[in-house]
């Protein structure tokens, strides 16, 4: 057979065999990957909301709200969503739970960040703080977001909407505060237009 025919035949056969095998592999691995992703999502939502039995989803333009409900209670216990924005070095993604009126943060969990190791990464884990390595994220528990989250340096917060920055990682700290303030407002408008 001519070279051209052989070329086409070989490449097509090769691609089809690969395609076929990969489709099988896809069917095998995809459910597992999806299951893991869902498991991690549920875990994160559970961590940031008050005790709840289930959650409803409200899909906004770029954000999905997870409205936590307790069986027997008509009103939601809290609303969780993923807040994303720019940190010092790159993208920061935070799962945040807020009160149904969006006035206070219940808790946060930082999902993704690529901040400077040893400095910016203290927003997740600060080994230099012997009492509480997650002191930074814990500051956000029951924090007021109105009018916005304020960041103070080198002193303890005095107002209900203040948090203390990490020494040497002011920008990372400020970024977290700004991302949360901004995204809480976004979530609020989605909830008010589509929710109850």
């Amino acid at each position, binding site marked *: 057979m001519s*070279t051209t025919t*052989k*070329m086409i035949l*070989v*490449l097509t056969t*090769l*691609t089809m065999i*690969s395609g076929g*095998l*990969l489709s099988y*592999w*896809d069917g*095998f*691995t*995809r459910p*597992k*990957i999806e299951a*893991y992703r869902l498991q991690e999502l549920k875990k994160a939502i559970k961590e940031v909301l008050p005790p709840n039995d289930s959650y409803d989803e409200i899909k906004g333009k770029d954000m999905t709200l997870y409205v936590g409900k307790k069986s027997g209670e008509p009103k939601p216990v809290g609303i969780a969503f993923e807040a994303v924005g720019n940190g010092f070095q790159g993208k920061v993604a935070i799962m945040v739970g807020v009160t149904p009126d969006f006035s206070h943060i219940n808790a946060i969990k930082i999902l993704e960040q690529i901040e*400077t*190791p*040893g400095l910016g990464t203290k927003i997740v884990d600060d080994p230099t703080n012997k009492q509480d390595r997650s002191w930074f994220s814990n500051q956000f528990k029951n924090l007021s977001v109105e009018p916005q989250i304020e960041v103070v340096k080198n002193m303890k917060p005095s107002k209900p909407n203040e948090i203390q920055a990490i020494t040497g990682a002011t920008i990372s700290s400020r970024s977290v505060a700004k991302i949360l303030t901004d995204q809480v407002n976004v979530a609020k408008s989605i909830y008010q237009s589509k929710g109850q």
Partner: protein
Amino acid sequence: MARKQASVSYEVIKGLWDENPVLRSLLGLCPTLAVTNSAINGLAMGLATTFVLITSSIIISSVRNIIPNQVRISSFIVVIAAFVTVADRFLAAFYPLISKDLGPYVPLIVVNCIILGRQEAFSAKNSVFRSLLDSSGMSLGFILVLLALGMVREILGSGTLFGITVLGDWFDPWMMMILPPGAFLGLGIFIALANWLNARRAKA
């Protein structure tokens, strides 16, 4: 004049030092720099690359006489990309934390010059058995470099080895070692060391 075929053991051993893919042939530098910020990441990447190198070597040397010359590279690429997809999905499904750490560097195994290089230079011209030996040796050489660099960078940069703290509080980690400058520095020194050792061997 026909080239005398190397011994079976040499086909494997050459990948460890004489023709070490990273330190002597300067191939696969991208993953070597990117995932050696910890020993376990280096090891995982080494194993993933080994899987792809060995499987694609077996396939390509089996069909080497059927593939027309003009579509040689494209055929190799399809085979390599397919196996990389298998490895990537495998990690994502069964070791999701490592998959997340290695990130886009697993699919980048597709363009790892070591793999395409070995297929071009060896598997396309040798029997399945010899190709298997060659790719095993090369893989081992690659894993050793990744592991060594990973260990050095992790110990100096985090004070840990495989996640376990080995240097006490007295050691203030050299953060730079787990960041890009440390990667370049570490690899540069490794390459220089390999060159120096080789020069000494040649003199002896």
